[in-house]
């Protein structure tokens, strides 16, 4: 990562703005100074052309924790997630304002190549999307592209380790040369997780990873997430509140707000420890959402 940091006033230790000081509705409602976050956003807004999809998000994601982003549809949670590894760069007309820092380095700095960002911040998508290659090649592809220097047996070890970490090894160890498409939906998603792990990232972003799967497969994915958090920092987007309650350490609640021009913009409403958010949320909106009064 290059060294130039864009936002000069930011110190390396991040502190989220204390609640009492904020007058505007849009600031988050976290109250404690969190430890150094692996990814920290400050005042981040995402635009698609003129349309402001998400406004003024300030969050700090902690290391080796699972953070969940929840909210009704259209609230911008996926947009926020995709901005964390510059996947929005692929959308023509998309623009990010504000600061997004990974271990203190601004990822949207003009000298930063998104390729570098994405090796360290991996992503798993809603619908499993393995490559039309063999299971082995699916895993090894990312490693090769990122310059894996090992020999064949070291690659095999890497593949095996990735599959084991994804709790898939036992099921596929005899058919590594078969196509990734020959697996069931749940297995494919675990394959995608293994694929993301194989490049040794730091953070794994998951965009509704279990929403296309049946309940049993979902359960396995959730168990896997809890397992993985020991080695990785995980940020997930989910529309399933119970899932967020089951797996995450910290939860951020987003909501859509209509501004005076009639534009629907997503805003961060509350971000706190999961147990707290679901039992005694600080903001009324959050309580309305989790009790099902809207959504």
């Amino acid at each position: 990562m290059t060294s130039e940091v864009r936002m000069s006033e930011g110190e390396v230790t991040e502190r989220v703005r204390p609640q009492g000081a904020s007058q505007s509705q849009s600031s988050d409602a976290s109250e404690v100074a969190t430890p150094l976050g692996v990814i920290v956003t400050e005042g981040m807004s995402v635009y698609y052309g003129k349309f402001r999809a998400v406004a003024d998000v300030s969050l700090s994601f902690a290391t080796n924790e699972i953070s969940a982003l929840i909210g009704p549809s259209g609230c911008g949670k996926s947009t926020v997630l995709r901005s964390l590894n510059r996947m929005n760069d692929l959308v023509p007309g998309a623009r990010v304002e504000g600061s997004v820092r990974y271990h203190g380095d601004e990822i949207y700095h003009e000298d930063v190549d998104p390729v570098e960002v994405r090796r360290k911040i991996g992503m798993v998508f809603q619908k499993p999307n393995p490559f039309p290659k063999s299971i082995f090649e699916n895993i090894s592809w990312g490693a090769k592209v990122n310059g894996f220097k090992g020999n064949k047996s070291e690659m095999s070890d890497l593949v095996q380790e990735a599959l084991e970490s994804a709790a898939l090894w036992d099921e596929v160890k005899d058919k590594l040369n078969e196509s990734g498409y020959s697996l069931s939906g749940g297995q494919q998603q675990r394959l995608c997780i293994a694929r993301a792990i194989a490049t040794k990232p730091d953070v794994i972003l998951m965009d509704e990873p279990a929403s296309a799967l049946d309940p049993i497969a979902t359960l396995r994915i959730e168990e896997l997430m809890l397992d993985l958090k020991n080695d990785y920092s995980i940020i997930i987007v989910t529309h399933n509140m119970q899932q967020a309650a089951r797996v995450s350490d910290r939860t951020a609640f987003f909501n859509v707000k209509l501004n005076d021009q009639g534009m629907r913009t997503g805003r961060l409403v509350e971000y706190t420890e999961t147990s707290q958010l679901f039992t005694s949320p600080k903001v009324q909106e959050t309580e309305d959402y989790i009790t099902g009064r809207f959504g």
Partner: protein
Amino acid sequence: MSTRIELQEKDYSDLFPVGEDLQSQIGGRRRREGLARILFMVVLIVAISALATLLYTIINAAFGMTAIINTVEPDTIVADVGHDPEETGLADLTYDELVVVLEGSVTNNVGRRLERDQRFYEDRFVFENEATWSEICASSQPPTGCDAAPRDKSNVLQLVNERVVEPDVVKTWELIPSLFEREAIEAEIRSEEFQAANPGARPEFRAWLNWQFVTSPQSPNPETAGVRTAILGSLWVIALTVLFAFPVGVGAAIYLEEFARPNRLNQMIQTNINNLAGVPSIIYGMLGLAILVRVLEPITSGSFLGEGGSATENGRTIISAGLTLGLLILPVVIIASQEALRAVPNSMRAAGLALGATKWQTIRKHILPAAMPGVLTGSILATARALGETAPLVVVGASTFIITDPSGPFSKFTVLPIQIFQWTSRPQDEFRNIAAAAILVLLILLIVMNATAVFLRNRYSRSN
């Protein structure tokens, strides 16, 4: 279990590039990316320059300086008739004036021959007399002039050009040199050695594509030849092609999309159509030759209608050509129409039937109009392709030399692409020039057709 712990303790950081190593790896990938972009640019430039070069070559040949020797200068002829050459050109003379010029310049024998090929006036003779005329027309082998319509002005103008002016182009230059080195070229033409080799040559900037070129019939002289016969032939042939291929093609598409059940037979028909679309066009020519020209000769030569009767009558007529090309573009029309029909939402079909209309009524009143923009676009594009087809018509038997305009579906014919083919195949330079001019005419016709397709498509989709 133990393997798992072992592997997890293994640190893979030494197997992935880090630090400087990493920077150079990423740098290498970035360089490859940049190189790829340059390569893609090169590819696109090659494609664009191929098109540009092609157009440039053609335009360059269709206009340019010539060193031309006229036996009699057009200006002299105009002056002799009594007009001012500054104001009037040879083409501005009236029909009668031109005939008079011709009368005064050609021998009687030549004149009689010309009149027998095609008369000058409906009501009087210029070279022949009444008695001899009735005699030869009553003979067993009457000349073409007995039945054919009399000449028109561009016809006679070409005659005057050919027989009186007798232009002879001895050297041509391309357009670009003609524009930028005009003086040098003129000096060369006027130089002693050039005049010695080509006495009386004078420089003239010539637009090989001009109105006379478009309106004159074919001729063995490149200086006076025109594409009229070819254009009319093309138009006749295309008219028949469309008349056949459009209804049959759209009909087949309607059958396949709206009526056909997905059984073996219909699948075979569909596969068959897809295969036919990929058959080389020359094969269709052979089909046309064997069946339309030979087997169906009584029909295609028109003899069943009592036409012809001349010994040269056979099946190599416009109708054979039109049907051959019709069969050629039929698969394309069917496939394009099928796609257009498929794009019509099913709700429209359901709505029509629910109102009590029969299937055909629904199709005729709702589905077909909705699909019409796509159907028309596809058909016009297919027709444009037919306009440019050469090989099948050569096989079917386009005439190699024909100077009379086609008079109906049973006439002999030549078409514009074949004319281009013939002229391109001749070694003399001047034929290169008129081939280029003819190509421009063809390209203009194609542009008009494609523009019509786009226009109709826009108009129809707006009114829908």
